């Protein structure tokens, strides 16, 4: 009897609730629609058009001829010998791929070496000071990338600060050629992307349970052991997140290698641009862009897998 009354009272209400929920969901679709439409037109959609273009034939004046072809994709990896037409790997492209991956990895490593102590330092400040230190790290990130690269360009130049400093110490006699080298590109990228490493690392270290460190010290662990066996495994999710955030813009960097790298240290971004400029080979450029996107997606997949695995570890 009691149950009956309850169900009679409850039934219409829950139906009303469900109707309201449905209405709210429809409202949510309508509210997010304009942003999604703009993003589809000017961010996601063009990626699919580019994929389509990578399978067309290049027009010699730029643009494409509406005729299907695998030439663009072929040229990403292979080339014909100029003289006898034999099939060879496209070593120029492959060396640029290799350089991009190599420099991005070194950049990521540099960012870890400098970013990890910085994030740790900020996270162990008194709570009231933290936002100030974080602000100091974030500000350069929001200032113009071009300007920061230009600043690096000036201090690495022939008569720039670094050379003057080394000369005044008497370490070198002639100015070193620092600009337009792979080293310059790496330093520049590490400099501009460092905040991307510090921020996620900080977020992880801030939540670190420091009593675990105390336990390790109580068990006579040395400083180095605590760092290697306790701190680093615990902040691994932040390390991976930061590495991904640095690696993605590094591998797609365009401005930094263009200004600091000169002609001999081209990276993928510059190779892609070349196909739409002097190269006039849009399908190849499109195929190279898709390849870059695939590299980024593989890196992201690695990130997702490693975070879900560490999630399992935490559950144990």
């Amino acid at each position, binding site marked *: 009897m009691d149950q009956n009354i309850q169900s009679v009272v409850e039934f219409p209400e829950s139906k009303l609730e469900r109707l309201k929920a449905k209405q*709210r969901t429809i409202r949510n679709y309508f509210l997010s629609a304009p942003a999604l439409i703009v*993003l589809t037109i000017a961010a996601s959609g063009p990626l699919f058009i580019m994929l389509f273009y990578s399978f067309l034939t290049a027009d010699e004046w730029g643009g494409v001829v509406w005729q299907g072809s695998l030439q663009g994709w072929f040229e990403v990896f292979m080339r014909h010998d100029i003289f006898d037409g034999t099939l060879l790997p496209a070593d120029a492209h492959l060396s640029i791929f290799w350089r991009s991956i190599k420099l991005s990895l070194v950049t990521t490593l540099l960012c870890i070496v400098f970013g990890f102590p910085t994030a740790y330092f900020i996270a*162990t400040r008194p709570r009231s000071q933290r936002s100030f230190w974080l602000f100091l790290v974030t500000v350069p990130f929001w200032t113009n990338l071009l*300007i920061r690269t230009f600043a*690096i360009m000036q201090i690495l130049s022939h008569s720039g600060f670094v050379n003057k400093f080394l000369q005044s110490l008497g370490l070198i006699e002639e100015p070193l050629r620092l600009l337009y080298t792979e080293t310059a590109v790496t330093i520049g990228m590490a400099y501009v992307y460092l*905040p991307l490493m510090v921020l996620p690392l900080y977020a992880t270290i801030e939540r670190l349970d420091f009593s675990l460190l105390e336990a390790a010290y109580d068990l006579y662990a040395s400083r180095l052991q605590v760092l290697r066996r306790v701190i680093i495994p615990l902040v691994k999710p932040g390390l991976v997140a930061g590495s991904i955030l640095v690696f993605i813009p590094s591998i797609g960097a365009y401005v930094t290698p263009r200004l600091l790298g000169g002609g001999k240290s081209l990276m993928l971004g510059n190779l892609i641009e070349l196909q739409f400029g002097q190269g006039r080979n849009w399908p190849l450029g499109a195929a190279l862009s898709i390849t870059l996107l695939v590299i980024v997606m593989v890196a992201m997949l690695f990130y997702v897998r490693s975070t879900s695995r560490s999630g399992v570890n935490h559950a144990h």
Partner: protein
Amino acid sequence: MHINFLKKRNRDRFNVEYVPSFPVLALICILCLYAPMVPLLFYSFNDSTLLTVWHGFSWQWYEAAWNNERVQEVTLRSLGLALQASVYSTILATMAALATTRVPKYRGQGLIYAVINQPIMVPEIVTAVALLIFFASIKAATGYQGTAYLVLAHTAFCIPFSYLPIRARLENMNLSLENAAADLYASPWRTFKRVTFPLLFPGILAGAMLAFVISLDDVVITEFVKTPGKDTLPTYMLGELRREVTPEINAISSVLFVVSILLVGMTFLISSKK
């Protein structure tokens, strides 16, 4: 004095949070983030065409930049573009934030979130090339060459940046005030206008300012989407950096640097205010 020093050593040694050499490395690192800007700012006041030899203080490069018609033109174009992109992206991001925050889970929510954040995850050069291809075919079909392409592209990649602070602000607002308004028979629109919007406003302002900075600073996408000859300030600077550099570029950079710092500082203050 000596005892104090020892005490400090002892405190550090028994502080479990302390890792040797980390504070030093951290301070060096933070210093290095700012140090390269110093010569740039310093030589913008140089009374010489040389970038690295100091001749004396002068405002001449700031005057030269101010009076340079080309710089005036590209600056105005950049400011107009950033203003439009930040207004549009903030409106769209606010609506999207309302649809994805403080709501029960619904189908497609994850996808909406992914699409909104997509411009952050895809390398800029890839988006830039894709837009070049897409807009080239529209240009060929319609013949339209105007600024709408740039406005559209900038609006799109600014959306995730305005979305972030708005969403963060919204997550910290509880629904009780809006529910109270609804209980008092306020229409949804009236509730938004009189309750949600005023509470959300700091987040919206922070979002708009971030979008403004992001749009003002963009080089790569603008470089590929712009109509030839219609540069923005960053693409103009990129072009100049390829030629002979005079301290005029230092002066422009310094101004842009200071403007960015001011805007970001204000954003921080606004979004940390309760």
